[in-house]
């Protein structure tokens, strides 16, 4: 059983991509590009010599960060796959209880964590032997990775399952909600006073040390004191901000008991979340149960769960005989079907219109309401001469995320819903792709019209640079990522990360929407727009190659 689960888990293409990213992270850590560093007053940043012990710690932190931010998008969908492939009724018939089934799923998710840790540790050991300082100690490098990553996988995998069992969270909204939840967890570390020495760090901060920042501070504190005279306290940072001007050397030591307790607690929370997921879980629709009953009474969402693919084996699939709308009387014997006298008369405009309609169908009501307000209210403000640059920035940030529900439908849905044969054999195998991209751009223009008007009114014509990036880049990324993976998950994970760094937090390098003055002046949105157009061209070429039989 475990062997079968492992083969199912490890045989998936999305996991291969995930592990490729993990291997690259292993390289970054060992080449000194990425790792733990400290900022100190009156001096350059301090980073650590790449000893085996520090590389192990760095690898554990990097693995934890990747698992927290990207693991959810990789691990979710295991129940959906069982549902789509008709396995759920089979499992039901074996009288497996819901908690046991979900715990089994959690086990397979945990197996992904074990393999992630193994891949990362292996990459770290190999790279340390090339770039590292001192002797390469495989044990010192590997065990921190397993201790840090595997328990976190239990938690992330459990949350992914819980979201998959609740209708409201099973789709794009859940993916956005998780992203913000993960960011919130990470930001909890900033609650520590900067002047606190390791022993004085509050327990709550330690309990929420998901990535290991406080652990790193605790472990390396004395090494930094030895390397930097006068060092009293600092935040541990994890990223690319190190400097070789001041270097500490961490040679290992006993890990604090609180961290092991924290990881055990993470596992316990994961198990508890799994058991909670059994409440809304429904064998025949992976969404529903208690939450569904409550939700039906509230006008929150009329979107059917994307996990609720109905199959012939699904007992809840409606039947012809049970359907009062279907007349049992024979119809069709005397039907005259008008002939088609003009083939190829519809034109691309009709394809575009249909793609627009398809993308706009099936969103929750509150999304339409929000999109309408976002389009109309700022437009009114702009027309009356109101609005400030600050308001424009806030609105652009919002416009850069609100249509995510629509963009997620681009690129992947023909494969996801089995429409590919109809599209590939149609008059517009490439036109369909271009049509959904243009439709995505048009919807962005409509939703963002008000924000764009204020941005131009307050920032002048240069604001159009940001508008260009915001209109073109997201649908393009969605199209390419969706086409190549057959799923919206890669797009959502990449896009939310970019949006968080750029439009939301003002990181000009990722500011594809022209929210920051620096990003706009450097033409960053134009670069993103150009990349977007390039992605569309490559995606169209991919479809063209696929449909070219020569």
């Amino acid at each position, binding site marked *: 059983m475990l062997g079968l689960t492992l083969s199912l888990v490890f045989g998936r293409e999305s996991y291969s991509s995930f592990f490729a990213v993990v291997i690259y992270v292993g390289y970054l850590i060992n080449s000194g590009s990425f790792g733990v560093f400290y900022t100190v007053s009156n001096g350059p940043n301090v980073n650590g010599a790449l000893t085996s012990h520090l590389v192990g710690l760095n690898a554990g932190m990097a693995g934890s960060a990747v698992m927290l931010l990207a693991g959810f998008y990789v691990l979710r969908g295991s129940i959906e796959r069982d549902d789509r492939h008709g396995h759920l009724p089979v499992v039901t018939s074996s009288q497996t209880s819901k908690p046991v089934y979900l715990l089994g799923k959690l086990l397979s998710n945990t197996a992904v964590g074990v393999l992630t840790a193994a891949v990362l540790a292996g990459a770290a050991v190999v790279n340390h032997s090339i770039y590292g300082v001192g002797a390469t100690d495989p044990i010192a490098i590997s065990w921190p990775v397993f201790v840090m990553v595997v328990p976190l996988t239990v938690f992330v995998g459990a949350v992914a399952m819980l979201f998959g069992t609740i209708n409201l969270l099973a789709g794009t909204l859940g993916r956005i909600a998780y992203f913000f939840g993960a960011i919130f967890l990470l930001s909890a570390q900033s609650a520590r006073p900067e002047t606190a020495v390791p022993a004085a760090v509050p327990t709550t901060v330690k309990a929420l040390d998901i990535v290991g920042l406080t652990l790193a501070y605790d472990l390396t504190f004395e090494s930094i004191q030895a390397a930097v005279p006068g060092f009293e306290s600092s935040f541990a940072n994890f990223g690319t901000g190190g400097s070789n001007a001041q270097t500490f050397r961490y040679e290992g030591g006993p890990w604090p008991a609180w961290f092991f307790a924290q990881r055990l607690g993470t596992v316990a929370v994961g198990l508890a979340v799994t058991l909670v997921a059994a409440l809304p879980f429904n064998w025949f629709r992976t969404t529903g149960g208690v939450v569904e009953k409550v939700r039906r009474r509230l006008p929150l969402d009329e979107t059917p769960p994307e996990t609720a693919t109905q199959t012939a084996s699904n007992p809840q699939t409606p039947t012809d005989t049970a359907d009062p709308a279907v007349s049992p009387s*024979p119809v069709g014997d005397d039907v005259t079907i008008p002939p088609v006298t003009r083939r190829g008369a519809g034109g691309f405009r009709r394809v575009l219109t*249909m793609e627009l*309609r398809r993308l706009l169908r099936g969103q929750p009501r509150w999304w339409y309401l929000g999109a309408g307000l976002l389009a109309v209210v700022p437009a009114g403000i702009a027309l009356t001469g109101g609005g400030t640059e600050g308001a424009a920035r806030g609105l652009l940030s919002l416009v850069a995320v609100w249509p995510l529900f629509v963009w997620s439908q681009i690129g992947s849905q023909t494969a996801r819903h089995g429409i590919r044969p109809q599209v*590939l054999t149609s008059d517009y195998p490439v036109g369909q792709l271009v049509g959904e991209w243009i439709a995505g751009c048009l919807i962005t223009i409509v939703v963002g019209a008000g924000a764009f008007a204020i941005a131009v009114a307050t920032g002048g014509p240069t604001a159009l640079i940001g508008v260009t990036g915001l209109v073109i880049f997201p649908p393009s990324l969605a199209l390419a990522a969706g086409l190549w993976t057959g799923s919206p998950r890669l797009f959502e994970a990449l896009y939310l990360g970019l949006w968080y760094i750029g439009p939301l937090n003002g990181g000009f390098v990722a500011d594809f929407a022209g929210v920051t003055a620096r990003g706009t002046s450097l033409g960053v949105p134009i670069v993103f727009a150009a990349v977007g157009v390039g992605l569309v061209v490559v995606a169209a070429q991919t479809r063209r190659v696929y449909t070219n039989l020569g």
Partner: protein
Amino acid sequence: MSSRHSGAHMRLEIESLGKQYSEGLWGVRDITLRLGAGVHGLVGPNGAGKSTLMRMLTTVTPPTEGAIYWDGTRVSESPGVVRSLLGYLPQDFDTYPTLTLEEYLEYVAALRGLDSETASARIEALLDLVNLTDVRDRRLDTFSGGMRQRAGIAQALLNDPELLVVDEPTVGLDPEERVRMRNALADTADDRVVIFSTHVVADIEATADTVTVLEDGQLLTHAPTESLIKSVDGDVYECRVSQSTLEQLGQEFPICNTVQRADGVDVRLVAEDPPTTDAEQVTASLEDAYLQTVTHAN
């Protein structure tokens, strides 16, 4: 663009067609067929290569070797020629769940290059044909398997296809609906090539002008339905035997059907001579001919 002279009534020509999936693994190999207007049944056991052949005919997947010609035009060089007049119901047919039936058909009509006027008129009529007019405004994720299959048949007929390829069109339909659908497909076959794949040989017998039998990716036979049935005429027997005799007969002859009775088993089989003294000769069916063909090949 290469083309070839086509026979007067042979619109679809398949020349030595093969599809290789990996080293040593062929989906189909060396298939040569010439098909004119009419219904052409495609039968064979699971994994025989029926769907692979259909995917190549519909330009979904390119052949590894050989060629397909439509009215003399090589399809691999001009796939658009076939796509513009193709109707296709794939085996794993599915739909966008959030669209209503009518919206979905309008979507397919746009992809098939129909103008809105023609699309509306044909959707109206096809909804009648497949008996789904009353549910045209319902979302497709509320449809049963049978209703979805009928929606699939409607979308395949939307553009008045000259080449209609339907892979297991009667799967999921109740018996009454199955008969209605196969008759509807047969009725639409005037002046067009209809390729109809199914496991239900009776559906082929009722509708098809010719039958193509595939096994293990190889073409076993391609013949007019009547002539294939005639090939076993006089060789089909029914008799009542004991369970142990049935096992013996099964080792010698293709068993077409068995029915358990209180005093034995009624068995229908294909044999050159009466298998038992009380065996009665009965009228042959396509299923008898099909089983005989497949058994002989093995």
